[in-house]
């Protein structure tokens, strides 16, 4: 490069460094390899701190739970660290803890995810443990029985705790019913109790295999050596024995129905009001994110301002989108003291009606855009976050443009496009599923006004009637 050229390069770099309004995020280029048996490997070197992060995704998840055995994928995930390869459960745990690593597996609705983070010097150990958990978990009887009983008791403990995380579980179970999306991801007390070691091993053989595995690693490591190591370790792994199940998109609820969950002694009522929403591939994702941010996705959202800031009825109110591969759910989630149950629910419904009637004005939409773009970069800041994003995109068959084009899509949204998304996605007031969790003795008669009521006790060993 001659001096003149470098001078102009310098000039351009200076201009680029000047302040610009947030414009979205561009994912870094990664190395992506597919093995013959279908394993996808994604690698990205990032050396700001001496850590290495892994995210391994097995497509499948709770939608592959056999009928009546909700929680199977979740139980298998838990069992992956209860002994694998040459290590029994205690030795496996010791190997992780001894180096200060973290490694865990969790089932989601449509995939099982192994997440780990280790000091860079322990990269070899991390890969070894990952290979063992996926290819040779022990799935022993004693460990399985212990974990299964413990998971049942975790659900009981959750029912003794803050009810806020529970209403979406009841909500999705009640809304989707027998559809695979109605499956509580971590199972329920009744379904977990039916799972045997034989079931678990059959499920592992049927739904775990190279053809549905994605491994993303990001952090402080050498990519060339890592490719070699992973290729050698995974090239010989078998494919899953059963195909991934096909299912139709769920059908939206027509009319209204109410599930009342009785928690005796509760001093607040927790409610979830929703219907069938959209899939992850919904084309107007940017507009929907703007609409949901403004309706109930941030502190200054419509729901928060009205229910909390102005009316003082609650500490929190949100609208939640669940966007899996087919249409998921869209719901309002909040809570209030028992005496103001109706007041708060009525206000929430009124705000849903207002959303449909008025949409949002230009100034508020601009604020929503700035907020989304301003809060986006910290979500992809660490190696572990990036690894998770790469794996997630791959699992849903999406590419980098899902992230890279997002900023531009947000920027081009306007009043009309946001408006059309609201009409399209948010449920009509006539068609709603309600879950109300609280002291049923005090609210039973009142909530009947929202629709036909089904009541269950919180101690019932399932999440739907």
């Amino acid at each position, binding site marked *: 490069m001659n001096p003149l050229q470098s001078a102009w390069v310098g000039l351009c770099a200076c201009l680029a460094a000047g302040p610009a309004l947030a414009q979205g995020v561009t994912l870094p280029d990664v190395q992506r390899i597919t093995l013959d048996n279908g394993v996808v490997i994604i690698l990205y070197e990032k050396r700001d701190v001496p850590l290495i992060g892994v995210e391994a995704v097995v497509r499948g998840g709770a939608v592959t739970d056999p009928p009546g055995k909700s929680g199977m994928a979740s139980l298998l995930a838990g069992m992956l660290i209860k002994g694998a390869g040459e290590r029994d459960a205690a030795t496996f745990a010791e190997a992780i803890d001894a180096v200060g690593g973290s490694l865990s597996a969790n089932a989601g609705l449509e995939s099982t995810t192994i997440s780990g983070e280790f000091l860079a010097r322990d990269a070899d150990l991390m890969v070894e443990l990952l290979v063992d958990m996926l290819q040779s978990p022990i799935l022993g009887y004693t460990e399985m029985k212990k974990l299964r009983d413990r998971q049942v008791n975790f659900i009981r403990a959750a029912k*003794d705790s803050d009810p806020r995380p529970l209403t979406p579980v009841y909500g999705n179970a009640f809304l989707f019913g027998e559809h695979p999306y109605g499956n509580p991801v971590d199972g329920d007390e009744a379904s977990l109790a039916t799972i045997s070691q034989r079931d678990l091993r059959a499920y592992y053989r049927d739904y775990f295999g190279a053809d549905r595995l994605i491994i993303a690693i990001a952090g402080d490591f050498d990519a060339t050596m890592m490719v070699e190591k992973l290729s050698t370790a995974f090239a010989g792994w078998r494919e899953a024995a059963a195909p991934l199940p096909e299912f139709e998109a769920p059908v939206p609820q027509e009319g209204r129905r109410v599930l009342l969950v009785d928690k005796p002694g509760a001093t607040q009522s927790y409610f979830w009001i929703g219907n069938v929403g959209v899939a992850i591939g919904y084309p107007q994702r940017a507009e929907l994110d703007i609409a949901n941010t403004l309706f109930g996705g941030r502190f200054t959202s419509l729901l928060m301002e009205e229910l909390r800031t102005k009316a003082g009825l609650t500490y929190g109110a949100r609208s939640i989108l669940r966007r899996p591969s087919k249409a998921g759910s869209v719901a309002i989630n909040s809570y209030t003291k028992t005496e103001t149950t109706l007041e708060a629910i009525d206000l929430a419904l009124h705000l849903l009606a207002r959303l449909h009637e008025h949409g949002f004005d230009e100034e508020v939409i601009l604020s929503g855009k*700035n907020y989304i773009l301003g809060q986006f970069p*910290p979500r992809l800041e660490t190696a572990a976050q990036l690894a998770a994003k790469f794996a997630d995109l791959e699992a849903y068959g999406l590419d980098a443009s899902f992230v890279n084009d997002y900023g531009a899509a947000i920027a081009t949204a306007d009043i009309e496009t946001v408006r059309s998304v609201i009409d399209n996605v948010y449920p009509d007031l006539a068609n709603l599923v309600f879950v109300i969790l609280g002291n049923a003795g005090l609210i039973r008669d009142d909530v009947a006004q929202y629709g036909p009521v089904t009541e269950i006790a919180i101690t019932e060993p399932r999440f739907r009637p």
Partner: protein
Amino acid sequence: MALFAELRRRNVFKVALLYAVTSWLIIWFVGAIHATTTLPAWTDTFVLFVLAIGFPLALLFAWTYEITPSGLKKAIDVEQTQSIVYKTGQKLNAAVAVLLVLGVLAVFGQRLLPTFEFILPGIPEGDAPLSEKAPADIRSLMLDNGLKIIVWPDHDIPNVVMYNFVRAGGRNEYPGITGLSHFFEHMMFLGTKKRAPGEFDRIMAAAGGANNASTSSDVTVYKDWFPRSALETVFELEADRFENLATVPETVESERQVVYSERRSSIDNDNFWKLAEQVQATAYVAHPYQFTVLGWPSDIESWTQEDLISYYQTYYAPNNRTIVVTGDVTSREVFSLADEYFASISAQEPPPPIHTVEPEQQGERRLVVEAPAQTPLLQMAFHAGSATDPETLPMSLLLNILTGGDSSRLHRILIEDDGLAISVGSFQDEGFDPGLAYFYLTLPPGGDPAVVERRVLEELRRVAVDGVTEAELTKSRNIMLADFWRGLATIDGKAKALGQYEVFHDNYESLFDLPDAIEATTAEDLQQVAAKVFRTNNMTVGVLRAPVVEGAQ
């Protein structure tokens, strides 16, 4: 070709080159001062615009005029034999060379010496870290009013984090105003003398920022996460609420209900915190750490306007606060904004010191909470050290060995081997005054808390008598070291860690001593702290279980 030769003869190319190099230097210079001051956002564009317009003019000038010994003449009027264009050309070459060398030196000089910046009058430089272990680009500045600002630049993502630490929490309360620190945290979002309730959040959100706040027994922390472009907006918003807060009576009433709702969810309808609140209240007889941070319900309903105003004046003064900024900033621009927005807020009398010292516990304390529960809970608390106490680090390492991860002693014994509990965890307060080390366990339905308690005590005694193994110590050190690095992987984690050390250890630099301190802690240190703390005379035990039905078998 004749035109080309003539262009060359008249030095047009050399002038073009000189112009380019000069432009580059100007733009670089503007960029450099931009990073240290708060020039308006359009400065770059404007400078580029002027330079672009100037370029053809300069070329035209070079073509039209010629420098002669007797001054500037039109090139066309100069006799070829009299022309000194060759000499002028040589001078132009020399100028280009000198400017290039200067430019390269300046650019690389700035890169090699991160402290080299254009020093503009009036902008304080700040102090470099006192410890060599701390990253050299951290800067701190103490304003005249006692407000200290710490900046750690990190340009990985175009975002910034600001933490505002206020040295006030449950510890500064007394019966009648319990929960006021936390309530005040809510008030800080509810309007100033010039802004209506909610406007703070609306302006911040519109600029792309988000925020939250939290209150503990020791401090109240305000956190802002925002894109670089919102830096000045956030400074203005923060300065306004820290200087001009309004406490409107109607807003106070409405917010009482919000806080009560928070209390109902977090404590009243959550068995874990319902029990923890009682354990905390029982473990102390004198020190204000006994108060629940959310406050007792009757106090939430009763504190007055005067309580709020006097609290604000006493605790929210600049000399009682610390600000940490991390992310895509330079220390200079932060200090210049701090100077502009915070320097005018006056210092106040320091808050009254908390002189109550919890008297030594003379025997074990027990309590029971009856509540609907399928899974009974057991919590055990022991009086331990403060943040700066030399025993606090050994205790943290010890707690890792006892409950950190599935290979920890208590997890293995209680959960895997004996099935006595479904979860076990521990926590140690690290505050201004000596706090508690807690163990908390969830039992399976029908589990007997007395049996579990005996088993836990047996293991705690074992540590006090036999100590820990070297392998366990190494494991615990590794867990802590990995946590340390994970904490510094984000700008949010950096702000949090710097602030914690500045506030609780009085110097942020000591954060970076932690890896060495971890290595220097011995197995004997752990055994000693176990023997000192894990005594039944020093213990409070709380049990939460379903009500016992009278007359039942």
